[in-house]
């Protein structure tokens, strides 16, 4: 008779340690968010007070909206551009493809802080090269960072640029895993290039596309470095996304209670996205 308990017993210590490391901060944050926080430390049960404070000032809805706009635009553009690049690279000769891949992946491996600072120096003032060019061509001053629409646009550009390398690599791996004979068979049957892509390639890329979409969504929602360094959440809150709000509550206003509450709301959103990913990834084309 096989002993079914032994494998579980052997795994138990590792799972316990992993569970402790992964879950204890969340459990602590959950408890912390229900406490009255004074001078950075819990002083007693406060119920949902910290969550109610999130609605003071009536700005949370707009912050959610901006987060959705930034994340939605960034994810859609990243996937669209990455897919086009991946298909193009897949058709290149191996040596050329390798060189292009290496170039495309560079933004992803550069530190976010460094990359964002580079963009900032290019755009932030009137002698930044991009701003200077725009100013010279238009005869005015570049408003990319000083106007709300321009600042959000630039934030999306930086987010897309930073993460496109990751998306290209995942989608390229997906493309490489599609058997050549499927596309060849379709072509023999008279399918055009677009039909092959839409009917064969795209459905078979479903899993890498979903994986990329979820990872990019989580990454864009949770990033604080890019908006903080690029725009500081301004001008006029135009780029104040949820992660910036958490940061400001914690380290500018020192309201650790509502900062933790908002971080937990974001965490719940992240969990929902992961669950959606798991559910969707089981879907069969």
């Amino acid at each position, binding site marked *: 008779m096989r002993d079914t308990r032994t494998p579980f017993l052997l795994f138990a210590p590792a799972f316990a340690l992993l569970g402790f490391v992964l879950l204890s901060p969340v459990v602590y944050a959950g408890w912390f968010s229900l406490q009255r926080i004074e*001078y*950075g*430390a*819990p002083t007693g049960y406060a119920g949902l007070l910290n969550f109610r404070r999130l609605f*003071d*000032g009536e700005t949370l809805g707009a912050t959610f909206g901006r987060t959705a706009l930034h994340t939605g635009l960034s994810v859609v553009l990243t996937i669209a551009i990455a897919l086009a690049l991946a298909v193009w690279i897949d058709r290149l000769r191996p040596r050329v493809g390798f060189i292009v891949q290496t170039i495309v992946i560079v933004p992803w491996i550069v530190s976010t802080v460094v990359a964002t600072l580079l963009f900032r120096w290019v755009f*932030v*003032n*009137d*002698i930044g090269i991009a701003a*200077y060019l725009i*100013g*010279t061509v238009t005869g005015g*001053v570049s*408003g990319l*960072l*000083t*106007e*709300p629409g321009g*600042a959000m646009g630039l934030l999306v550009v930086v987010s897309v640029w930073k993460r496109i390398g990751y998306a290209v690599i995942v989608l390229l791996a997906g493309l490489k895993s599609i058997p050549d004979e499927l596309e060849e068979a379709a072509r023999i049957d008279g399918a055009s290039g677009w039909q092959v892509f839409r009917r064969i390639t795209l459905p078979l890329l479903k899993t890498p596309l979903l994986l990329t979409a979820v990872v990019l969504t989580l990454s864009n929602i949770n990033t604080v470095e890019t908006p*903080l*360094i690029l*725009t*500081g*959440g*301004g*001008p*006029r*809150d135009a780029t104040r996304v949820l992660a910036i709000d958490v940061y*400001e509550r*914690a*380290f*500018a*206003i*020192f*309201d*650790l209670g509502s900062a933790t509450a908002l971080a937990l709301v974001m965490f719940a959103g992240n969990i929902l996205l992961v669950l959606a990913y798991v559910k969707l990834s089981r879907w069969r084309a």
Partner: protein
Amino acid sequence: MEISKTLRGALLGLATFVAGLAVTAAEAQTIRMWTFLNPAGNAPREKALAEMIRKFESANPGVKISVEPQVWDQMTPKFLAAHRAGNAPDIVWVVTDLLGDALKTGSLADLGELFVNKWPAAARDERKDGYWSRCAQGNRVHCLFHSRNYYGVIYRTDFLKEAGVDPAKLSTWPAFIEAAKKLTVKDASGNVTRWGFGQQFSEDRADSQMMTSLMLSRQGDLFDAKGGAKWANATGAEALKLQTDMVTVHGVTPRQAVTWSAEDLYEQFAAGRIAMFTGAVVRISTMQAKVGSDNVGFMIWPGIDGKPHSPAVMAGWAVGVWSGGKNKAMAGKFLEYMSTGESDKLWVEVGGQLPGAPSTLASMKAFTDLPANAYLTTAALGVAKYGWIPSVEYGVGGYRQALNKAAQDVIVGNVDPMAALVAAEKRFNQQNNR
């Protein structure tokens, strides 16, 4: 026989080694300190601190001052949390905005018991200024300021000289604005190559801007007795308009100021892109290292209503000993060493910042008479006569961000200054439960 001798020798050596280890362990004492300064760094204040640590450690064998550099805006909240958790460092640098919170939690030990009460009365008395009063509670003293910051106008002396501007005559705002216009330079295609007056209105790493000086001159404070914001009034609106007119009317401050953090101003200044800017006196030594020691000057804000100057915000870092620490005596000893005349001179000469004791500066006349060091005398005058420091009775976290947001509203959104201040006041009071 030979083996026995060798064995005995080896055992003796081992015993000596073990005994040595035991003695070292008994004497070794590590004092943990949280500060934003990294003694391994090259900034003037970092060099000064490193020198103090080196001297203290050599005078106290077995004592190690272990600096754990922190991100400045997160350090004090982190310390307060660590105090509750029982694992705070022995010495901590507390930001002025949160000093009241640190005092109310009882996280800072009484330095009177540790060393201040042993000082001669004259040594205590000469330190009794606005900074001292923020650290004192009754007969107890819980901290000493070791980074005395005063906000005013940092300027390029060479640019002002070139434009024929005498900084001593910029004692009114109209004179200041005219000078800023002279200092704003455009190239042949009309692009500005140098701005007359740099300001920063980003909420990221925000410093106090010029409007606060005008408000302080008329109101005496930025907050009411309960810590509520006192901005949405005629004085506040006039101050905000004067500040934003620099961008929208006079064209001496770039519109990009709405995206600039305090750090951007120092970078722009070091690059020769701005001639004057709102800056902190503690950063002058760093600027001098970048653009030449004779090329950086400092002035107190112009005055209003016939007064020679307007008050400026004072800030800084209050250094204290953690009340829950196990090494309070030695931590106090190091903090006392940081406050000696010898260390005070290091702060001035190497760190380029104001000393803790006025007598230190008075004793360094030959040093302060040098043109490159004149800013120290100016800042000392500002601290003594034209300074304001927030009360420790209430926290004021977020006020600079709220006022900068109001400036953004006016410049980018064309919002009326009074309406912008009403929103800023509401936001600050809500955030701080006032």
